[in-house]
């Protein structure tokens, strides 16, 4: 937080690689999510297993419209289509025009955009990991030490009460959520994506198998995308609550204004 009466020192919080990869991922998330919804719309049903049940039921999620009535079926529970799902401008489609790239029905272009940014995403992940390893930042910034696990509960309680007093060093909740995104959700996104590729499946048959089959991988891909979208929303909210100017300065320029007395070894 910026406190005019007690200006703490400016400290280097983010490396150049962290800042560049952060914004590249932000762009990737935007394009991958919206082109991904375009691809989902081509067959707005998710299944569990190797194949899609047309003559049997292994559907997990189904979004559509019948006789002008929208519906969403989740795990066999049927609900009336709510909000924007089911139709858009009178035509049956799962996610509406404003949520897809391109806005109209265009699976081919959605795939072109999706696979381009998928490669950008993977390259960014590798560059970030190499940079973080070389600089030794993983242990310093993301590793959950004993004191972080011990402080997790009170940190979570404070965040739930919208008391987000961030400091120059990441707190327990920041370490845990950033670590989960970088080392669990991001790799899962790549692996579930690869598990849908028939070419990659032939060379790496264990991949769809451990994920429960190609259609399960497609379902997981969708679920992890939803989790990343949830992370994005909470992440932006936390930035706003924790002092958006200082946080934005840090992720743009690298410099973060710490509290007085907080910094000793940065």
């Amino acid at each position: 937080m910026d406190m005019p009466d007690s200006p703490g020192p400016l400290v280097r919080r983010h490396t150049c690689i962290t800042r560049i990869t952060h914004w590249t991922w932000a762009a990737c998330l935007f394009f991958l999510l919206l082109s991904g919804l375009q691809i989902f719309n081509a067959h707005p049903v998710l299944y569990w297993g190797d194949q899609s049940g047309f003559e049997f039921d292994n559907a997990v999620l189904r979004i559509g419209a019948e006789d002008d009535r929208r519906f969403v079926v989740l795990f066999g529970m049927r609900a009336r289509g709510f909000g924007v799902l089911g139709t858009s401008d009178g035509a049956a489609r799962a996610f509406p025009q404003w949520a897809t790239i391109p806005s109209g029905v265009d699976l081919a272009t959605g795939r072109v955009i999706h696979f381009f940014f998928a490669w950008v995403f993977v390259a960014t992940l590798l560059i970030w990991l190499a940079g973080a390893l070389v600089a030794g930042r993983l242990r310093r910034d993301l590793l959950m030490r004993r004191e972080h696990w011990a402080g997790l509960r009170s940190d979570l309680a404070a965040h739930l009460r919208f008391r987000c007093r961030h400091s120059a060093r990441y707190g327990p909740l920041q370490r845990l959520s950033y670590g989960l995104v970088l080392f669990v959700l991001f790799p899962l996104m790549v692996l579930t994506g690869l598990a849908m590729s028939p070419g990659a499946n032939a060379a790496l048959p264990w991949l769809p198998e451990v994920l429960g089959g190609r259609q399960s991988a497609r379902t997981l891909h969708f679920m992890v995308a939803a989790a990343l979208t949830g992370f994005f929303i909470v992440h932006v909210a936390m930035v706003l609550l924790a002092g958006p100017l200082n946080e934005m300065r840090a992720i743009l320029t690298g410099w973060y204004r710490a509290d007085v007395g907080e910094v000793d070894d940065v």
Partner: protein
Amino acid sequence: MSDRLLTRRALLRAGMTAASASLLGGCKVLDGLSAPDNTIRRFMERANDLTMAMQRGVLNRDALATEYSAADIRQPQRPNGVTNPQDDAYLALKSTDFADYRLEVGGMVHQPLSLSLAQMRTMPVRRQITRHDCVEGWSCIADWTGVPLAYVLSVAGVRSEARYVLFHCFDTIERSLSGTVRYYETIDLVDARHPQTILAWGMNGAALPVPNGAPLRVRVERQLGYKMAKYIRAIELVDDFSAVGRGRGGYWEDRGYEWYAGI
């Protein structure tokens, strides 16, 4: 408490307004990417070359697609695209149960062939239970029987300058003012000579049904369904496909889909 609620509500409202504004603005602006000659689109399409290079160069290029057991066949193979061709030549052949059907094999071969279904059934047989992945996102497992394309190519003798196998099909998939468009596809010789690439005349223990491409379709098990041409009339070995259709190597490729559909 009340100020909390207000904060939360205001936050939600501000967030949703910002998000929807950026999405609305973003998406319409990006619709230009749908145009086939859009410069940025052409650049993005090159990521698919990287995908192909990785799948062919880094992963095992001879890998076999997963084969399933009979218990995994739980439903009929879902047909897609054209499912009942109305072209005269096709209807005539269908009326006699394809007894007069001949597969023409030509182009850059030493020995052009004209093969009946009976002749192809006496050739080496490969049977495989595989998963068909549609570009739309769904999958379906079925049992396919046919002659390896590699065998037919070896009988015809592929000339050294040939690079692609071009499938000419019976079915008209599009009628427009500029004429009718029949389905066509191309694959390269790596996929053409892959052991699981077969000219299938049988499916799930019976003759190949009309909706699934009777009398003959190709299986290219490491790519998506649109590569696996149905209702095959002729096979032509070519060194270049830029003069066929709109020049991108297939009916769906001409409409924006990737030529290499291994992803």
